[in-house]
């Protein structure tokens, strides 16, 4: 590595210089919106680099930690390319730190608990956003953004942008992506075609039975339905399209009710039915027996030819995206129309952790992620000519023989700036915008629950969840155990959590004038 980096030093300096010159010269397109942020560098083009550098003092290496998906083998190359741009604009190089999703919660806890420098971090209400804020691990962003990234808010729906606030302060900026989601199934096209199957007559999840049966009977060794992860059980997928989970604690809203009255999901008829459905599929042999303990995710199972389909939340262009990730062509069908939930904004955000070396510089990098087309493309798709090639029509495709950087991200920055893959509609981002806008919005969009007043109960509930959820929702355990599960949840303080959540929700609704 050392030798290599020396060898590329000279050319990279040359390239960086030329990039700076060209970026500053033609800064009317991508670079322009980011120019004000790079330290007031509306300076003349020729001195652009040096003035940005001067206002930012000494050079820093900013670390961006995010969830590593797909193939990240050549992340180092992408990092070098991005660093060339950021070096010129904000006098900082970038260290990309992909962390495997399976290890995400643990690694981030360790990162934040220790003193390792992390300057930008992907945060999510699925991964303890509220408790990270409660523990003071993330910095409030309002002032930092106003100063360093004033145009970021224009990149998304205002309701989404404002939805990350906790106690009136922002701690994360949502990524520009599909903030709404519809729900359905993704399945392998080769097998669908082989047995002449189609989703045309499938209107609900229950209608999937005959398709699963065909696969089960004719393709030994292929599981008709696999789970996306241990904790993303089948039953969970079945109810998610109809509910707003309001973060990672008990107490949910039913979207179609359009109200602010929390219910205990585990005691709803819908959840009971979902468990029955999952159990039925499990007993029919459609779900793998060790679904609840396996460490293998859906993508690797499909890739290895051991799985046929999985349930998922979806978005425009989902089939193409999944085909790339799985290395097999996929077809999708949606059964539940799109919804935007309270965490549509908070689902994936960029935050600045307490551990940052320089909050202002981190905010400047954040700004670049939302406004610089080149950086957005590098991060999402890799290096042109190496990780993707031009497919004409403004679209891109995989290079011959695949590549070692396949990210397909949705979690970082402004994805609407990225090039569209071949197979997707060229107006994908326009479609996505409309999809987001036309979804059914949860009444509680933007509400974040602060669990610290009931953290004792939350800790106890997590332990009960660990014990039952994966087994029940994968159909591995008989649904008759649900009563026991609910009883233990109650003993652990479930009702107290829901009461506290309702209290906060009511206060939030009152403060925001929501009926």
């Amino acid at each position, binding site marked *: 590595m050392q030798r290599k980096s020396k060898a590329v030093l000279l050319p990279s300096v040359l390239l960086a210089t030329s990039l700076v010159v060209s970026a500053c010269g033609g800064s009317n397109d991508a670079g322009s919106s980011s120019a004000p942020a790079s330290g007031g560098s509306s300076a003349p083009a020729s001195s652009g680099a040096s003035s940005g550098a001067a206002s930012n003092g000494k050079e820093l290496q900013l670390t961006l930690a995010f969830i590593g998906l797909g193939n990240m083998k050549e992340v180092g190359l992408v990092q070098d390319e991005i660093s060339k741009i950021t070096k010129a604009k904000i006098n900082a190089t970038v260290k990309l730190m992909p962390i495997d999703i399976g290890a995400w919660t643990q690694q981030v*806890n360790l990162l934040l608990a220790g003193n390792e420098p992390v300057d930008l971090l992907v945060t999510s209400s699925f991964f*303890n956003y509220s408790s990270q804020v409660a*523990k003071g691990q993330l910095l409030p962003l309002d002032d930092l953004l106003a100063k360093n990234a004033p145009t970021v808010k224009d990149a998304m729906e205002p309701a989404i942008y404002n939805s990350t606030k906790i106690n009136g302060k922002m701690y994360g900026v949502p990524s520009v992506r599909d903030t709404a989601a519809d729900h359905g199934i993704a399945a392998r096209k080769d097998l669908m075609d082989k047995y002449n199957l189609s989703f045309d007559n499938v209107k609900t999840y229950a209608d999937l039975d005959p398709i699963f049966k065909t696969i089960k009977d004719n393709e030994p060794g292929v599981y008709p339905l696999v789970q996306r992860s241990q904790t993303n059980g089948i039953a969970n997928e079945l109810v998610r399209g109809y509910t707003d989970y309001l973060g990672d604690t008990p107490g949910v809203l039913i979207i179609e009710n359009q109200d602010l009255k929390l219910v205990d999901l585990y005691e709803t008829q819908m959840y009971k039915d979902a468990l029955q459905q999952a159990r039925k599929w499990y007993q029919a042999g459609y779900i793998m027996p060790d679904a609840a303990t396996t460490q293998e995710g859906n993508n690797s199972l499909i890739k290895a030819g051991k799985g046929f389909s999985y349930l998922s939340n979806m978005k425009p262009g989902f089939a193409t995206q999944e085909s790339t990730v799985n290395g097999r062509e996929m077809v999708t069908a949606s059964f539940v129309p799109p919804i935007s939930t309270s965490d549509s904004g908070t689902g994936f955000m960029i935050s600045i952790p307490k551990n940052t070396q320089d909050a202002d510089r981190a905010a400047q990098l954040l700004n670049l992620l939302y406004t610089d087309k080149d950086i957005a493309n590098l991060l999402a798709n890799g290096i042109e000519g190496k990780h993707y090639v031009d497919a004409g029509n403004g679209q891109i495709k995989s290079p011959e023989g695949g590549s070692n950087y396949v990210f397909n991200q949705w979690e970082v920055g402004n994805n609407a700036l990225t090039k569209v893959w071949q197979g997707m509609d060229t107006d994908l981002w326009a479609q996505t915008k409309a999809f987001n806008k036309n979804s059914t919005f949860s009444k509680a969009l933007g509400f974040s629950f602060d669990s610290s007043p009931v953290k004792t109960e939350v800790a106890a509930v997590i332990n009960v969840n660990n014990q*039952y959820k994966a087994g029940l929702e994968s159909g591995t355990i008989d649904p008759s155990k649900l009563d026991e599960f609910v009883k233990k949840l109650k003993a*652990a303080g479930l009702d107290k959590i829901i009461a506290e959540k309702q209290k906060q929700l009511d206060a939030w609704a009152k403060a925001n004038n929501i009926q």
Partner: protein
Amino acid sequence: MTRTGWASTFKKLKRYRALFLMMVPGLAYLFMNNYLPMFGVIIAFKDINYAKGILGSDWIGFKNFEYLFMTKDALVITRNTILYNGSFIVLNTVFAIGVAILLNEVRSKFAARLYQSVILLPFLISMVIVGYLVLSMLSAESGYLNLNLLPMLGIEPISWYFEPKYWPYILTIVQLWKGTGYLCVIFLAAIIGIDNEYYEAATIDGAGKWHQIRSITVPLIAPTITIMTLLAIGRIFYSDFGLFYQVPLNSGPLQPVTDVIDTYVYRGLMTLGDIGMSSAAGLYQSLVGFVLVLLSNYIVAKRSKENALF
């Protein structure tokens, strides 16, 4: 202290100064490694806020301990920890002594060395690998038991990782398989040290093998047994994390029988990220462990003063 007392202390210091000097690095290490971090005990009583730092965070009394005792968790993990480790101590000792005596009787030098190595081998394997060895036995559909053994006996396949009732036995067997070898080597060394004349005399007096073992071998290695057992009891509250976390593949339904204090604390810190609560559990572990060591030492001291640790 009297004058002469001081004088003799000073004399001793002077006389053994080289030895005392040698003690310094060890003490310094012990102090830095084992005593300085005790400052962190206060974390268990604080509402840790990273912005405020450890000292600046608010005191919240015993609130961090509440979640342990709110459900039956504290009871279950304490029970599991003590019962498992207690039975491990007994079984390991019995098995190790048995195997050591058998090994001692093997006349062929080569065979004895071979057996010894084979028995020791599992001790050297990482628990993560052991976890997957067990999986290869118990996996729902490709495991040896479900695929070959149970059908042969006409028994329906069992979802091993979802049936808590089997796990006390599975864990015990795995731990025996892994842990016996090490202890066995220690006992074997003690047995080899016994003077052969005892046995010759016993043989002449007409004592059988069984009699010799009971009246010569076991009493003569009793000090070794006591020390090893006391050391083990001292650590009875520290479970083999790998055994209880890796081997059951962290399967939820097994938690009532596989959750011990270490795994509980680990899960707490990892999924919740709450240092305060985890410290509380850790402190609880240390306290009960401390009491247990005092108690067992007291019992040993009552029976024979020489064998007690202090």
